[in-house]
């Protein structure tokens, strides 16, 4: 990395002049604030950062920031980000997603991104609902949550993204809470600094379709113990976790996806000899 460190960056430097479309009181405003705080803490110039997203309320975030952004299609942000980072290892690549985009339509990419361990950071704003399409159940919605699409609830056990991430090979697993942007920003910065695929689940309340989530601020708490680098211990903790432990839960030391090799062939004619006869 040939990162240019610009001292005295302020969170405001990473905000754009585009006005968010989010509902008043949406947790994503705080995630935006946490993002800008994290980038200011890291101090990389905005032009060396790429923020990739998919589709959903959370995925609108790139337009609201001053770094390079890519707002793609539903569920595929991790693939776009892997392409950016593998072709351009000099850039800092961060992905923003939501529980529908990241865990449902993009679920397969989530598993393989963890496994591939490219040095990118994945921030999922989880509000346990499809907000942009007006309130359908997502993979993390509680089984008895009543919606128009699933009257009486889905009856399905919620997806546990942190356990999936760990089992699939993510190199860093943390949970943040949008209601504490200072702490969330510090966690995002830590995740970006950590090599390999870093995953941060951010509990980000949807005040419109999930007003019950306003109570989250009473439920969140620090994890009872320090982060571990032992996947077996982390697995046990995550399987028994109440879903509201806020902090770093696993900090692995797996080598990231290999860097690009330097060119050793400078003239394509060298490849032609295999065809000559």
């Amino acid at each position, binding site marked *: 990395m040939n990162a240019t460190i610009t001292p005295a960056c302020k969170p405001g430097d990473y905000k754009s002049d585009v006005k968010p479309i989010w509902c008043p009181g949406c947790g994503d405003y705080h995630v935006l604030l946490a993002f800008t705080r994290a980038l200011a803490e890291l101090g990389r110039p905005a032009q060396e950062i790429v923020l990739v997203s998919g589709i959903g309320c959370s995925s609108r975030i790139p337009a609201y920031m001053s770094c390079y952004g890519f707002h793609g*299609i539903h569920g595929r942000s991790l693939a*776009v980000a892997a392409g*950016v980072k593998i*072709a351009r290892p000099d850039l800092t690549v961060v992905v923003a997603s939501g529980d529908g985009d990241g865990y449902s339509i993009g679920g397969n990419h989530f598993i393989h991104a963890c496994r591939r361990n490219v040095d990118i950071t994945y921030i999922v704003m989880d509000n346990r609902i499809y907000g942009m399409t007006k309130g359908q159940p997502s993979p993390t919605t509680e089984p008895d949550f009543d919606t128009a699409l699933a009257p009486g609830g889905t009856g399905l056990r919620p997806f546990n993204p942190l356990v999936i991430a760990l089992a699939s090979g993510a190199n860093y697993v943390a949970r943040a809470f949008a209601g504490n942007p200072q702490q969330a920003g510090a966690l995002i910065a830590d995740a970006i600094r950590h090599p390999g695929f870093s995953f941060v689940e951010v509990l980000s309340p949807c005040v419109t379709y999930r007003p019950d989530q306003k109570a989250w601020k009473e439920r969140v708490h620090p994890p009872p113990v320090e982060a571990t680098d032992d996947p077996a211990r982390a697995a046990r903790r995550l399987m028994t976790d109440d879903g509201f432990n806020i902090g770093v839960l696993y900090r692995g030391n797996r080598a990231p996806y290999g860097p690009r090799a330097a060119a050793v062939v400078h003239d394509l004619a060298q*490849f032609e000899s295999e065809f000559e006869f």
Partner: protein
Amino acid sequence: MADDPVSVSVALLGSGGAGVLTTGQLLLEALCRAGWNGLLTRSVGPQIRGGEAAALLRLSAQPVECHSGGFDLLLAIDWHNADRFGSEIALHPDALVIGDPSGGAAPAAMVPSSARRGDLRCAELCKLHPEWRANMIALGAAARLLAIPDEVLERVIDDRFGHKGEAAMAANLAARRAGAEAVAGFALARSPPPAQANHGKRWLITGNEAVGLGALRGGVRFAAAYPITPASEILEWLAPKLAQVGGSLVQAEDELASVNMIIGASYGGTPSLTATSGPGLSLMVESIGLATAAEVPIVVVDVMRGGPSTGIPTKSEQADLNIAVYGLHGDAPHLVIAPQTIPDCLLSTQWAAFLAEALQTPVIVLSDQFLGQAQGAIARPADIAFVGRRLRAEPAGGAYRRYALTGTGVSPMAIPGTAGGQYTADGLTHTERGVPTSSAHDHAAQLDKRRDKLEQYDYGQLWATLEGEGDTAVLTWGSLTGVAREALTLAANRGVRARLIAPRLLAPARPAAMRAALAGVRRVVVVEQSHGAQFHKYLRAHYDLPADTRVLQRPGPLTIRPTEICDALLAERAA
């Protein structure tokens, strides 16, 4: 009257894993080294081992772009499931059929009653000499019948197997001799044409390899891959090469990921490509639309196979034209380019990479199984100047407008890392700055821009192959271009002149250029390999065709033969 192209055609048959395709490759290499030209295609069943496999080889003094009307020699290591080839392998009435009587009987429907027959007891010989391989016996027999000099063949065998040690080589050569001796009493009804000594620098290359080299020549330095028949060889060829030139290839978890990875890499400034077949293209179309909207250059190669659904993965068809041209939702202009021959796989892919960068657009390259897995001798393709160059932005103060409305429709693109160029690439309808909008005005402005940049560009002569003259034209595309070219020669030898019009650029359509190409044409024969006459309907949608337009069309995998097109032209004239 001129002679029809003189050639000899050989079909080698055997169970999958028996080494038929290797035999075909060795035979092709030997005959090319001996001074002929040749084309080798494959037709195989779905099984990896134990299915049916055919290597179809045509030898000629001239460059070969297609198969002829029939085969002169059918040589079977065994007859296991040979009936499944049915009419794919049509024999001349005076063909020679050589097979192992212990390996079953030749399917009656396949062998004309007038054909001559001979035995090649591969199984028995291999039982006597356990170190021999049946396909080496078959190789020796076929090479003798084609009059390939022994020393040329033995050198080819040595190049391929010499590393396996002296004992293995001795066994291969002994098996080769036994095969040759077994057919000593036979000769082909048609002798091979005289070999030629001076061909200049030639390559033996497959269409899929040519696509890979074309991509590199065009500047592609990133590829994402998901395995699929019959496109995987492109990706396997590129994997080590990209690493050596400082690029990279990533195996993705699916085609949704592979296409989005190349979009990401290209957004980062690296010319990027993926290759797939119909099922993969179906998964990619949503993302190709994103590349259109966000104006990210990418190249997607579709090596077409039989469809719909899983279809016939191992055999050729031209039925992905509709999805390639019309498959994207919304009004999503993009380029579709179809290579016509093996060397054109190189040229067209290189052109595609060049155009993708120049026009900041996705390009779909429509190859097919016939071309992709065909191996042929070609003259070394010249180096051409198509190396992708993207119009880059170096913003200096003020708000950068990524999607600025310009005269050409192409807007300078800022690459991440460029200070002051920050913008969000977006699949949402956006303003010139890239900010999401739902305004009718902005929507129309960006739709116009993306259409105009492709419509206004000067694609030059490469848009189509235009040959011959006369008031009758054969209109075709892709791998049937070579077939039509030979049909025109056959027709000319019978006093009927016709034109060949084969668009390489299928989207956007070029109405003015097609009008000029069709000037004076009163009769058209449309030739295509699709059940639904997709090409004919495409032509009808975009171009004015004469009232006397006929369609010669059928689905894959039964290749349309030059003789069929020639017959259609003669019938047109008679009518």
